[in-house]
């Protein structure tokens, strides 16, 4: 048993030694080929790329908030308009009832009253349609969440890449410790669901999957 462990340890040592040699060879080759400078430039540019992505996330977030604020304001105006129209319609309907009795109203006046009542009656329906449009505008702002998650992952990737480049540039000795496996990571929005079979493409996919499992 102890011998097996010793053999495995020796094997690990060999692997690390070979990885170290490969890293050293790669490092030397890159330097001799003149790529070391380019790698350093790439490493130096990554923080700038991260900042630009962070800027995009911030500006798109602010834009989404502005749109949501505007939707809220428009909804308030729409609500006030509906309430005022309801109030005026009630008052005009009282006038219409009075006119229907043939009192103090010309035919043209009666027609005006009827058309005005009809207009006010239609305001509610128009307000509902506008509210539906405002909901669509509001829902479209979910792009900030979805793109934000993708940007966050790209930033993490850039950070990792930068670290790897730094290591590639400055490390020539073999790793001191066995590399740790990355823990399971949540993936965020799937940008190309049709190319994969381990994800669902839409809500129907979620419902079908859960139903197939009895949930």
């Amino acid at each position: 048993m102890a011998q097996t462990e010793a053999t495995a340890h020796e094997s690990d040592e060999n692997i690390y030694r070979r990885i170290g040699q490969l890293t050293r060879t790669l490092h030397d080759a890159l330097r001799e080929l003149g790529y070391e400078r380019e790698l350093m430039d790439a490493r130096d540019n990554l923080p700038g790329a991260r900042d630009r992505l962070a800027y995009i996330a911030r500006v798109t977030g602010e834009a989404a908030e502005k749109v949501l604020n505007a939707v809220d304001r428009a909804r308030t105006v729409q609500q006030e308009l509906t309430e005022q129209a309801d109030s005026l319609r009630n008052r005009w309907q009282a006038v219409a009832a009075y006119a229907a009795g043939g009192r103090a109203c010309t035919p043209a006046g009666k027609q005006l009253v009827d058309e005005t009542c009809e207009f006010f009656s239609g305001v509610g329906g128009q307000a509902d349609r506008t509210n539906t449009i405002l909901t669509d505008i509001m829902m479209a702002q979910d792009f900030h969440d979805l793109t934000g998650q993708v940007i966050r992952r790209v930033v993490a990737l850039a950070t990792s890449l930068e670290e790897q480049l730094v290591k590639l540039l400055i490390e020539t000795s073999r790793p001191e410790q066995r590399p740790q496996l990355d823990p399971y990571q949540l993936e965020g929005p799937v940008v190309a669901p049709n190319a994969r079979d381990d994800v669902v493409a839409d809500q129907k996919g979620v419902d079908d999957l859960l139903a197939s499992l009895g949930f």
Partner: protein
Amino acid sequence: MTAEPRFLIVDDFSTMRRIVRNLLKEIGFGNAEEAEDGVVALSMLKAGKFDFIVSDINMPNMNGFELLKIVRSDDALKLIPFLMVTAEAKKEDIVQAAQCGASGYIVKPFTKATLEEKVQKIMTKQG
């Protein structure tokens, strides 16, 4: 469940919290509060009574799965309906959510109709 159910919306993106809050209001649930991650949500859940949780999964500090597991293992919280609203579309995540006790799962981007249908379905089941 009280006459006016109190919702807790958990998402690290303020835009999405606001969208969900507005949608809930549109479908008749105007009593909602927000938390930016699982840690804040848990603190709010322990501080006050909530009737419904709508939570993202991918969040810093404490993600939706961790929050769900804690909620389901807490005697005072375990019966609260827990609806996942997330961009995570991996089948593995959907199954995990169901196995951990999620009451429903909505994948982003979603529609008002989907949210309304899932909330109503969960509420009906809850009684």
